[in-house]
């Protein structure tokens, strides 16, 4: 063992109680930091994964991103227009199949047309406003997880009856409808039709499960009272993180409003960023507090060891050597604390992941956690740097001691 390490180890070993308290401080700091990071990033990843799975990665709707410009705006640099009613526009995406075919040539992923509609569902004397989504069962599985969310029936069940509908299981439960129940749908456009429940699904999102029904494209077009209408093209990209760029390009190409999942959930993603800033601030604060313990022990040791420092310097130990001794003591405390903190953090994370709870928003009843080496390395890095800083100042003070002052005092 090198001389410096030997002296440092002897110092900390002979102050076992104080050293253990300092190590416990670092262990707690590192442990809780790892647990918090695992919890925060785990829930964030889980949230994003669920979001990405539940929603289309890109949604192209029949709205225009820019409002239609008036002829006067085109001709003149500045025009003031009063009392103008916008021209009535026929809803739906123009030539939807041609648009889809054009996009399919370059978009890395799958596309499907759909019709978004609102209707009042009537059954057993109850009236509920629901979202009716017209889909193509053959391509739906490529863009959403609806097929895997089916509780009763399959997507192909929509072909089983004319005007067939798949209901969210909570919606079905709320109105008491079962498979083969006949319900009535009344659209905002005035269309009224009888529909047969051919299956139920469970997405895990309460809002969706309570207020959504899926029908064939054709059925939704009847509800919208417009043959061939497609008012949404849904896209699932191979890499969800590429959605924003692809969405922008689709918008430029088609002129329609194209929204990626990131754009649709911008507020939530901003909140996640803010949450991360908060998390790392708290984690930093925890480790900073832990470093006070290290500072305390190293300060105590240097204070107690003033005479020994004078002896070592009088023997001919260099200033750098004296400083290194106390810095190594701090690093020893930090390192042992960090390694124990890994175990503590892992156990805390395991414990947290095993806790069960209920949330009104989804079915997930275990706290999602993320086991990442990054958290362990980050916490260790911060703990070591904190220990180093905490040890540096007492070490510097120790190295600056003038041996004669102490020797005179002792004699």
């Amino acid at each position, binding site marked *: *063992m090198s*001389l410096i390490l030997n002296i440092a180890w*002897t*110092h900390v*070993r*002979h102050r076992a109680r104080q050293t253990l308290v300092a190590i416990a401080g670092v262990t707690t700091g590192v442990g809780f930091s790892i647990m918090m990071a695992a919890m925060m990033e785990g829930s964030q990843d889980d949230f994003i994964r669920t979001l990405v799975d539940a929603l289309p990665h890109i949604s192209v709707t029949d709205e225009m991103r820019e409002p239609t410009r008036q002829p006067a705006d085109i001709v003149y640099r500045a025009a003031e227009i009063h009392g103008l009613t916008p021209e009535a526009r026929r809803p739906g995406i123009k030539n939807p199949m041609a648009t889809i075919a054009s996009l399919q040539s370059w978009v890395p992923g799958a596309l499907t047309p759909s019709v978004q509609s609102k209707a009042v569902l009537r059954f057993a004397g109850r009236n509920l406003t629901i979202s009716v989504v017209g889909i193509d069962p053959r391509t739906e599985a490529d863009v959403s997880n609806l097929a895997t969310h089916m509780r009763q029936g399959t997507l192909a069940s929509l072909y089983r009856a004319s005007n067939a509908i798949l209901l969210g299981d909570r919606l079905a439960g709320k109105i008491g409808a079962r498979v083969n129940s006949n319900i009535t749908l009344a659209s905002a456009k005035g269309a009224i039709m009888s529909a047969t429940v051919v299956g139920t699904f469970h997405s895990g999102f309460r809002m969706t499960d309570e207020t959504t029904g899926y029908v064939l494209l054709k059925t939704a077009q009847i509800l919208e009272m417009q043959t061939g209408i497609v008012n949404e093209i849904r896209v699932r990209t191979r890499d969800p993180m590429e959605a924003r760029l692809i969405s922008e390009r689709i918008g430029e190409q088609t002129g329609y409003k194209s929204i990626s999942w990131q754009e649709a959930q911008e507020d939530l993603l901003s909140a996640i960023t803010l949450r991360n800033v908060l998390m790392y601030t708290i984690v930093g604060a925890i480790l900073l507090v832990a470093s006070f313990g290290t500072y305390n022990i190293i300060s105590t040791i240097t204070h107690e060891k003033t*005479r*020994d420092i*004078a*002896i*070592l*310097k*009088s*023997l*001919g*130990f*260099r*200033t*750098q*050597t004296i400083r290194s001794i106390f810095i190594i003591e701090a690093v020893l405390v930090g390192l042992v604390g960090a390694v124990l903190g890994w175990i503590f953090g892992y156990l805390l994370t395991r414990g947290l992941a095993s806790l069960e709870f209920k949330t009104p928003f989804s079915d997930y009843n275990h706290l999602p956690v993320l086991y990442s080496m990054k958290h362990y390395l980050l916490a260790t890095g911060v703990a070591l740097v904190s220990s180093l800083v905490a040890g540096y100042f007492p070490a510097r003070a120790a190295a600056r001691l003038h*041996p*004669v002052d102490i*020797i*005179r005092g*002792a*004699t």
Partner: protein
Amino acid sequence: MSALIEARGVTKVLSGIVPVTLVQGINLTIMPREFIAITGPSGSGKSSLLYLLGLLDLPTTGDILIDGRSTTVMTEDERAEVRLSRIGFVFQFHFLLPEFSITENVALPMRALGKLTSRAATLRAEELLASFGLGDHRHKTPDQLSGGQRQRVAVARALANDPPVILADEPTGSLDTLATSQVFSILRDLVVLRGKTVVAVTHDLNLASQMHRRIHVVDGRLANDGVVTAAARTH
């Protein structure tokens, strides 16, 4: 024969609201194999002079030459290197590190110099301790030894790197008569048998009279620097 240590017009003033002069205009030369006593009344500057000669302190003016080399132009690390390799210190209190065994204490300067491996340093430390009659105590810590034994360990540590000069500040000041006699014998043997130079600050005029040269300091000045006659030594 060239001088081991040479003080040239050394003055040490402690700065402060009222500056205090510890040592003033000291000129002296220390040759190999000398056995020197520095005497003087309390507060006369004996220890201050010793610390200056041992490079533990820097003179305000003047220069200390070790082996003919000026030390005032040296960096702190260079002075530390000279202390480690050329000078051994023994203080009034043993100043051993309490957590380490006496063998480890003696091995410390050797390990710091880095010329010997840890194992070789330990072996040499054990040999040194055995030569001072402490072989059986080599695994003990300083608090397990008597005052005289501790001071013998301190002498062994001072000899660790085989320096030509041992500077001792009241080495027997805290010892009883028997231990004083033992430690003094060891210091004398260092000169007579091992060819070292020993410079010791002492209040004990009886001991001083048994040494070869006596430097008397009064009010920080050299009052007398003379050879102790053989008659005085025997007396």
